């Protein structure tokens, strides 16, 4: 549709002084609603008929021509109908599809919402459980702390923990004479240790080996052994206790007196010093296979 119009009959009738180019768009669209080609072709045909009236009067040819034209128009009309029907079918089919997908989507949204609700409920539940468990954990941690403290105390009491404190270090060595009877014997060491326990020592180690309730001082061939570990002279006996009274009390006990008497007799070298801070190691952890804890009510009946 070109801007400079051909001077058609319509146009000539309504031409304005302003000219075709200035025609408002809407008005131009309305005026040129009919394809101009129809007017052109009609004008040309009229001109041809005017120039050659004989051919135009050939009625049979013209009828043929008109019939063919109508058939052509019918074919185009059929195509048009096909287009319209197809578009309508397509649109309705699409509408059905859209509705289906919309329904599906709505269903999925609802499903998702349900799941969110469910999950939120579970979150709340789990949070509650977590709170409960945290409370339990705190209880357990507190109980563990108490138990650890108790174990530490028991270790100290039973001699199964490393300990430190003031005490006496007594070094015993063979006599300088080098004679056989001048050697330190197991019984000497036993007497000394027993005397120390009696004098109030709270923890004792010999040559760095801690003495516990399961310790035995034995003779192993020529040497003295604590359980299975052989010792060599000099024997360093470290005892934690009251430094002011421990040595004096040791002298007063029967075992202490016996030890010092024998030591004087065979000429053992004995040296006793108060030490402000002794470090006694922990013994190897005991492996108890048969002994098990027993309640205080049954133990008095079982023990005799």
């Amino acid at each position, binding site marked *: 549709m070109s801007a400079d119009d051909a001077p058609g009959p319509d146009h000539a009738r309504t031409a304005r002084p302003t000219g075709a180019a200035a025609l408002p768009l809407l008005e131009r669209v*309305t005026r040129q609603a009919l394809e101009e*080609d129809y007017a052109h072709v009609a004008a040309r045909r009229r001109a041809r008929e005017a120039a050659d009236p004989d051919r135009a009067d050939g009625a049979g040819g013209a009828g043929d021509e008109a019939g063919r034209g109508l058939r052509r128009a019918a074919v185009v009309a059929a*195509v048009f109908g*096909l287009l319209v*029907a197809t578009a309508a079918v397509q649109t309705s089919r699409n509408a059905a599809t859209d509705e289906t997908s919309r329904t599906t989507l709505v269903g999925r949204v609802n499903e998702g919402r349900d799941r969110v609700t469910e999950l939120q409920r579970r979150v709340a539940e789990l949070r509650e459980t977590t709170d409960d468990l945290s409370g339990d954990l705190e209880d357990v941690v507190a109980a563990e702390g108490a138990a650890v403290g108790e174990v530490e105390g028991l270790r100290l009491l039973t001699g199964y923990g490393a300990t430190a404190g003031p005490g006496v270090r007594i070094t015993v060595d063979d006599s300088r004479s080098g004679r056989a009877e001048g050697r330190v014997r197991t019984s000497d060491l036993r007497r000394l240790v027993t005397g120390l326990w009696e004098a109030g020592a709270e923890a004792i180690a010999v040559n760095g080996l801690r003495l516990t309730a399961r310790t035995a001082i034995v003779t192993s061939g020529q040497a003295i052994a604590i359980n299975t570990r052989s010792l060599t002279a000099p024997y360093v006996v470290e005892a934690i206790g009251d430094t002011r009274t421990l040595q004096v009390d040791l002298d007063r006990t029967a075992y202490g007196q016996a030890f010092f008497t024998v030591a004087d007799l065979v000429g053992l070298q004995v040296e006793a010093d108060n030490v402000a801070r002794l470090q006694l190691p922990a013994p190897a952890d005991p492996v108890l296979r048969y002994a098990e804890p027993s309640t205080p009510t049954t133990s008095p009946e079982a023990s005799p």
Partner: protein
Amino acid sequence: MIAALGLLIGIVLGLVLEPSVPLGLQPYLPIAVVAALDAVFGGLRAYLDGIFDDKVFVVSFVSNVVIAALIVYLGDRLGVGGQLSTGVIVVLGIRIFSNMAAIRRHVFHA
């Protein structure tokens, strides 16, 4: 009469066969239909005016359909498909209405 028969046959064919349009062409079908509608009403008016010509009708029909589809396709490529379709529909609608008015004048002599 024969044209109306053709139209009827076309519609029936379309409804019976339900031809499926390729997915790529689906957006252009409605606008092509509107363009075809314009061509058909133009042809009808020309027929009533007595200046109908089958060649012009065929050419205007085909070119209307093709050009309308092309414009929308171009708009889609440029990202203004919706606006261009609206413009095409407006122009074609106005033409259809004014052609209808002319046809009405012919039919009812009013």
